[in-house]
Each structure stands twice: as structure tokens, then as C-alpha cells.
């Protein structure tokens, strides 16, 4: 190379020349003190510039949060990255904070509606002595809990969900916290109504009454949860209510046939004892599938 490769020297210094050009320039430099001085100059410029760049440091930690606050609400809830492990130092406090944080995010009407339904259930049972607590509570408790559960999760129920999901808290933890709230609330109400009915009606003992609605409540709720995650809240409510009504309609229709031994005993629906251990197993299985499905729900929506 006879001409001085001056125009290539900056690229030589920042090592972005092709290997062939780099070798040519190196060969030239070995024989050319003028270009070596040029390279030394460019290196000085490079060092000064790089020092300026390094002095800047990192952007502020909250910069991304500031950007996210300015993003328009997306039409779809975004897909999720693998959840970061939650801060593990105080797991209990974290869990309490997570559950408390969900309270304002759950539809407010849900709390009042659930209480109203249980109060009505208890009132009807107490007002009409011909009605058996064993009939009314097992009818009311599962369906109230199931509808509540269907409203727990998903973008149609929570405009703030995508914000919750952009935090390191996993979608499963958010779902679990909300379920704990709604199911816990309904369970407390059902137990209260149960206690009230059992206290007034001398023929009814507390625990047998509980066992008449507890398993159906969890079974119907787990079904409702899974359906709400897979096909959406509206469909989940429709299907759950439909199944529940059908179950009770068949029971009512067949009541007259009970003496003939043609009717299934109370608590049986389509061959499953919905108040027995099979119901618990089924409820657990449905819940597990729902939890497995929860993060996918965000992708599909």
C-alpha cells in the first residue's frame, strides 16, 4: 500500500475494519511513522471520547417506569416474561401485601352481591319453616362462590391487570391472592349463614350442614375458575349457572320419584357425589389445571 490510509484509521482504531483491510493497514503502519502518529492521535481522541461516555453512567432506575406510565393502555394484555422470583426476605409480609393489594382491584359490587345472596339464603331458610337449611345453603353457596370466582381474573374484569402483570409478581401469585380473597370471603359468609341457620333450627347440626355445601362450593368454583380462564368470564358464568340449574331442576323434577328409588340421593349429579371425596379431588384437579393455564390466558387474550 503506497497511499496513506488516513481515512481508514478511525475504523482501524475502533476495530471495525474488515479483517483484510485491518491486515493491510497494519502492514502499512509497520512501515509508516506518519500514519503511526495518526493512529496515536486517533487513539487519544478515542480515549477522551470513551471517557466522556463512561462518565455518563446508567440512566435512572425509574426511567422505564416513567415510560410505562406514559404508554397507552394496550388493547391486549401483553405476554409475560418468565416471572422474576419475588423478594424472598419476608414471604409472609409479601403475601399479606399482595392479598391486600388485590382488594381495590376486585369489582366492588362483588362483595355486596355475595353478602346479599347469603343473607337472603339465610333469611329465606329462617322465614319459611318448611324450607330445609340442607336445601337452601347447598343451593346458594356454590353458585355465589362460583360466580365470584369467574369475576376474579382476566382483562375484562380488571383494567389494572396489565399493570399488575408487568410487575415481577407472577400471574399465578396474583390469581392465587385474588382467589384467596374471594373464596375466603364467600367461605366466611357461608359459614356465618350456616351458623345462623344451625343456631335457629334445632334439627340441623353445624358440621353436617357445612358438609352439604362445602365440597359442591369448591367443585363449582374450580370449574368456574378454569372456564373463566379458558373461555372468558361471561361464558364461565353462563356454563356454571346452567349446569347448576340443570342439576337442581333434575333433582326437583325427580323428587316425586324419590320414594320409588328412581331419584339419585341429594348431592349426586351425573353420577358424581358432589358432596363427597370425588368432588374434592375433581375440584383440586380443576384448580391445578386453572393455575397451569393462568399465564397462558394472558398470551391468548
Amino acid at each position: 500500500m503506497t497511499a496513506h490510509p488516513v481515512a481508514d484509521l478511525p475504523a482501524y482504531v475502533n476495530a471495525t475494519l474488515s479483517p483484510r483491510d485491518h491486515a493491510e493497514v497494519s502492514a502499512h503502519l509497520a512501515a509508516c511513522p506518519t500514519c503511526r502518529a495518526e493512529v496515536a492521535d486517533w487513539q487519544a481522541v478515542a480515549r477522551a471520547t470513551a471517557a466522556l461516555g463512561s462518565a455518563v453512567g446508567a440512566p435512572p432506575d425509574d426511567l422505564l417506569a416513567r415510560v410505562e406510565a406514559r404508554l397507552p393502555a394496550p388493547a391486549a394484555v401483553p405476554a409475560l416474561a418468565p416471572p422474576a422470583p419475588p423478594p424472598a426476605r419476608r414471604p409472609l409480609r409479601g403475601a399479606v401485601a399482595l392479598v391486600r393489594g388485590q382488594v381495590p382491584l376486585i369489582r366492588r359490587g362483588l362483595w355486596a352481591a355475595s353478602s346479599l345472596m347469603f343473607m337472603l339464603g339465610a333469611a329465606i331458610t329462617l322465614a319459611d319453616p318448611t324450607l330445609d337449611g340442607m336445601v337452601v345453603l347447598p343451593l346458594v353457596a356454590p353458585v355465589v362462590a362460583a360466580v365470584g370466582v369467574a369475576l376474579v381474573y382476566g382483562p375484562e374484569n380488571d383494567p389494572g391487570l396489565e399493570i399488575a402483570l408487568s410487575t415481577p409478581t407472577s400471574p399465578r401469585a396474583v390469581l392465587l391472592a385474588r382467589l384467596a380473597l374471594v373464596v375466603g370471603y364467600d367461605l366466611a359468609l357461608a359459614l356465618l349463614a350456616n351458623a345462623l341457620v344451625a343456631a335457629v333450627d334445632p334439627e340441623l347440626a353445624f358440621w353436617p350442614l357445612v358438609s352439604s355445601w362445602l365440597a359442591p362450593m369448591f367443585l363449582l368454583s374450580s370449574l368456574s375458575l378454569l372456564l373463566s380462564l379458558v373461555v372468558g368470564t361471561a361464558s364461565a358464568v353462563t356454563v356454571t349457572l346452567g349446569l347448576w340449574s340443570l342439576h337442581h331442576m333434575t333433582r326437583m323434577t325427580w323428587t316425586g320419584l324419590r320414594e320409588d328409588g328412581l331419584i339419585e340421593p341429594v348431592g349426586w349429579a351425573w353420577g358424581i357425589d358432589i358432596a363427597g371425596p370425588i368432588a374434592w379431588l375433581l375440584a383440586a384437579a380443576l384448580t391445578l389445571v386453572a393455575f397451569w393455564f393462568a399465564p397462558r390466558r394472558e398470551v391468548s387474550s
Partner: protein
Amino acid sequence: MIATMTRQAGPATPEDARLLARVAGGDRTALAGLAERYGQPLFAYLSTLLGDRTTAEEALQDTLLAVWRGAGAFQGRSAVSTWLFGIARRQAYTRLRRHRPELVDDEQLADMADDAEGPESLALARLRADALQAAVRRLRPLHREVLVLAFWQGLSHAELAEILEIPRGTVKSRLSKARSALRRLLEEEDL
């Protein structure tokens, strides 16, 4: 004997394009992923170009917003990194024009041959590092940015040409003009 510069942003990867595609689909975690990879290099570029951290923070925010809005328009003709720097650059120049229009809108001036330039006798390599840094800070934005992109970000002439939206030949001459301008600033100081 020759120290080489390293890239701050790391090599562009297919992962970048995947992240950007997810951003186009409305995925905020993907935007966070891009910010994780490019936030620091973009911020360093913006800070040195704008000369002010606060303005650079605003420009970086607007850059990420523009990425969010424009991700769907990315066609893969350039690397994601170059595309990002291009967006950041437009954000920076919008701000520079607002404050110092006379220093910005003279692209031709920045690339013009300087007839008054004599033999480049001042050996920058012998100068004190802090004097050199101070002089880089005082360069006009067009000169400062080409140095920062080349020597802090470690970008190639092809990448510089894309980001600065000029032909490759102009990249070479602009680098050379930037260094001449640096020399002049330091010579003026000496007088």
C-alpha cells in the same frame, strides 16, 4: 500496540429482532428487555450529545415511547441497534434545535473542507487527557456525536452512515473534520 475499542451495546442479535417484534405486539416486558440492553448506550449517547443528563433522560423516555409506537414499522432493513440509535438521534436533535438552532442546522458546514486548516501539527496524543475531554465536550453536536458513536459505542462506518443518514464517504470526512475541529479548539486554547 494498538488498543482497540469495544462496543458498548454488544453485537446486534436475532434476540433484538424478536424483542422488537414482541414490542410491536404490545408486549411491555419486551420493551423492558430492549431498555435493559440498550438503555445505557443510548443514554450515554444522548447525554454526551445533549450535554445534560435531565434532557437526555427526557430524550431517552421519548425514544422508548417512539420505539413502542413505531416497532411495527421496523422492517429489518437495518440492525435493531442502528434503528434505535437513529430514533434517539431524532429525539436529541428535536431538543437541540429548540435550544441552539445555530449549532445544529449546519450539516454542510460540519462536512465542508476547511481551507484555513494548515498541516495538522498538534499532536493530540501528547495532550493531557482532561484537556482533550473538555475539548470533545465543546465540539459542535454533529462532530461530538460522530466521535461518541465511533469511539464510545464502537460502531462501524456502515452503521454510522445509517444512523447519521449520510453516505459512508461523508462519515470518513466527518470524523476527520471532527478531529480537526478538536485540534483547532485546543490550539485556540493554547494561544
